[in-house]
């Protein structure tokens, strides 16, 4: 039984390490921005990875991106903590950024994370164009140069990328439900 136990533990570690190595930088940066506090963001990263591990059965069946799920969980943890602080009568003055984050995100979580997921599920060629153009703010010509494709191709891929995302966003608003645990 000892050998069996050891093997299970290793697969758990493989899982957590793989999430950490792929998503850790993004989650830590995201948490640091939302909380304004690197140490708090590290706690959020740890808690996010633990929750992902606890829900690994669900994650394995997720018809979508693990990254979207992880971001959702991280954001929920941050929001919950901000709320917990807010209801305490005596507390160190709340950071403005935290309050702003909570209010700002309460209405938009679904949009942003569903959008993230829809973006990640795009074919490479469409996603890279949208990322360069819209998220990195590059010009048409810069994007064409970086990706090594003609400007006309950039335009058509951008168009088709948006269309595919529209299809995915329609009716997917609740696809990431149930990730508060």
């Amino acid at each position, binding site marked *: 039984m000892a050998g069996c136990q050891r093997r299970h533990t290793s697969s758990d570690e493989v899982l957590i390490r793989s999430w950490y190595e792929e998503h850790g930088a993004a989650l830590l940066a995201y948490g640091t921005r939302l909380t304004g506090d690197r140490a708090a963001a590290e706690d959020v990263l740890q808690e996010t990875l633990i929750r992902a591990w606890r829900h690994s059965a669900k994650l394995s069946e997720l018809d979508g991106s693990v990254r979207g799920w992880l971001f959702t969980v991280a954001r929920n943890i941050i929001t919950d903590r901000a709320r917990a602080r807010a209801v305490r009568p005596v507390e160190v003055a709340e950071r403005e950024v935290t309050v702003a984050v909570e209010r700002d995100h309460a209405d938009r979580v679904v949009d942003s994370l569903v959008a993230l997921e829809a973006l990640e599920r795009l074919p490479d060629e469409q996603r890279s164009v949208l990322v360069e153009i819209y998220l990195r703010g590059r010009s048409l010509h810069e994007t064409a140069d970086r990706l090594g494709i003609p400007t006309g191709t950039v335009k058509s891929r951008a168009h*088709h990328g948006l269309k595919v995302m529209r299809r995915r966003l329609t009716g997917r608003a609740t696809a990431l439900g149930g990730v508060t645990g």
Partner: protein
Amino acid sequence: MTAPTHDSRLLGAYALELLDPPERDDVEAHLADCPECRADLAELSAVKAALGEVPAEALLHGPPDADEVLARTLRQMRVEAATGDRRRRAFVLAAAVAVLAGTLGAGAVIGARSVPRPAPGSDAEAGPPTAPPTAPPVAPTARTPAPGTRVGSVVDPVTGARLTVSMTPAAGWVRVNASVTGIPAGENCRLVVVGRDGVHEIAAGWIVADRGEGTNLDGSAAVAPADVTAVQVRATDGRTYVTLPL
């Protein structure tokens, strides 16, 4: 009248402000006369707005500089696992495969990525089979892969390069996770998905680091899952380092 023939192919590019002035004028002239395209544009603009909600951090890939967080997380996991529900663990294997199969297409976001393995000495107590890419983590869990996932590993007898692949089907295309070792430092490589009719799609690209620890990367290719015959690593000058038939 200036309205050109009904052609909605540029509406997305219009919404993203990618058109040059003559194209833009044409589209606007057409929009004035076409309620259908106006509705289309409104929807695409909403998608664009949603895209603007994607957190900028989502563009980052790779491990953070926070190995102590990983160590803490693993300790917490072990404590919970020691007392936790054993039935849950069977599913962890499946989840591990899904993750390793490259569920995110991370390479796609930045074109390609090359993630160094963990720094030597970081959390050295663990030693699971992830550390060297030569011991591919996909192999032990291959019995519970995501549906349709294909895995394989091969060493080229001439070049000595090893390629381990986990390929997951998507709707008309494939996600690929690959571990590659045994290629000289500095080589500019492409991960190529070969289709049945001889098509070659580049799934990822990277330059081999000089630390000799191999590369693990994710990519995707617009080849129908059923049509994939092989995955290859090639140099940019066309030489093939290793081919894995699938």
